[in-house]
């Protein structure tokens, strides 16, 4: 009889340990990763947006809108805006024309474009006064068909 009780206590203790370990493991996995790990996967400022596929690092060039490359839009009006070195000259070559503009004192530039139906290849280049430049290419597709 005493042996059975001792066995029951032992089994209960073992089960309790297993359950405790399970809960501890679950808590540990649910906790957010450490700050140092988060920092290592944070995007580098040199590659600021997912919308760009080509860039030189001589001067910065960020396209803020549209915020993604290969976007599908249902309006033929598009505002292209971004940020580069203050005072840089920015050229934009697109399907329906080309423009040269200048970034303001904060490096911000903006241009309204009328898109053609179908694909629109947009090429943006920024030059500083020394000829250093950065380049971004975008593909924006305009379709009035509901996708």
């Amino acid at each position, binding site marked *: *009889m005493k042996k*059975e*009780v001792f*066995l*029951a*206590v032992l*089994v*209960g*203790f073992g*089960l*309790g*340990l297993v*359950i*405790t370990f399970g*809960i*501890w493991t679950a*808590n540990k996995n*649910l*906790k*957010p990763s450490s700050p140092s790990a988060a920092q290592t996967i944070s995007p580098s400022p040199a590659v600021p947006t997912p919308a760009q*596929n*080509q860039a030189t690092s001589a001067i910065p060039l960020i396209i803020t809108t549209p915020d*993604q490359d*290969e*976007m*599908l839009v249902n309006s033929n009006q598009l505002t292209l805006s971004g940020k580069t070195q*203050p*005072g*840089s*000259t920015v*050229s934009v*070559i697109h399907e329906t024309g*080309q*423009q*040269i*503009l*200048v*970034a*303001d*004192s904060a490096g911000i530039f903006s241009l309204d474009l009328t898109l053609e139906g*179908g*694909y629109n*290849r947009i*090429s943006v*280049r920024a*030059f*500083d*006064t*020394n*000829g250093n*430049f950065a380049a971004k*290419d975008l*593909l924006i*597709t305009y*379709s009035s*068909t509901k*996708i």
Partner: protein
Amino acid sequence: MTARFLVFPVAALILASSVFAQTPTTENSQDLRDSVKQKVEEELSQIQQAVSKKAFLGSITSKNEAAINLNTYRGEPRQTLVTTDTAIKLKTGRDGTPKDLNVGDYLLVMGDVDSKNIMTAKRLLVIPAPGEDNRQVDFGKVTAVSSGSITIQTAGNKTVTAKLLSSTSVSKIQAGASVKAKIADIQTGASVVMITKSAASASVTNLQIVAAPSPTATAAPTSTP
């Protein structure tokens, strides 16, 4: 009787250990809430990415019954899944099936893209291959300019000569803004950005004077960018 002895201690120990393990401190509760919140946000972000609508432009490099691999016009690989819901339009304008698509065909594919950038095609158009864009942009110093042509030397020592047309748009930077200018405003030594269109002979479509010519390298007017 033996069973009772077995059940009570086992149940008591299980309950006691579980309660002990689950009794969280306030800090632990907050951590758990934060982690759950973070997970939910990550899932939402993935869902949002999954429903983003995109379009791929490229030629077919390979295909099977369910998927098409593309090489985009910029030389990047893309994968798109074709389903029975995919509307396929052939070059002739008639509706097609995946069997009508061949390696080398140029496509504009529209659909939903998942977090791995794999598209489920909703609409697929077979189109002619896009033509080469024969426009180029150069930055350089003017080495010669007349009413009919301009020559610049780029930073890479490339010489670009192009015709100036009456339609050439000329601008200059004044007080930080781009203002209309005349070809006569362009002087030898000035830094310019110009967009040229290559044809039999290149012609300038857009020209912007970046900085007024400076006699010495040390002169750095504050009004120029």
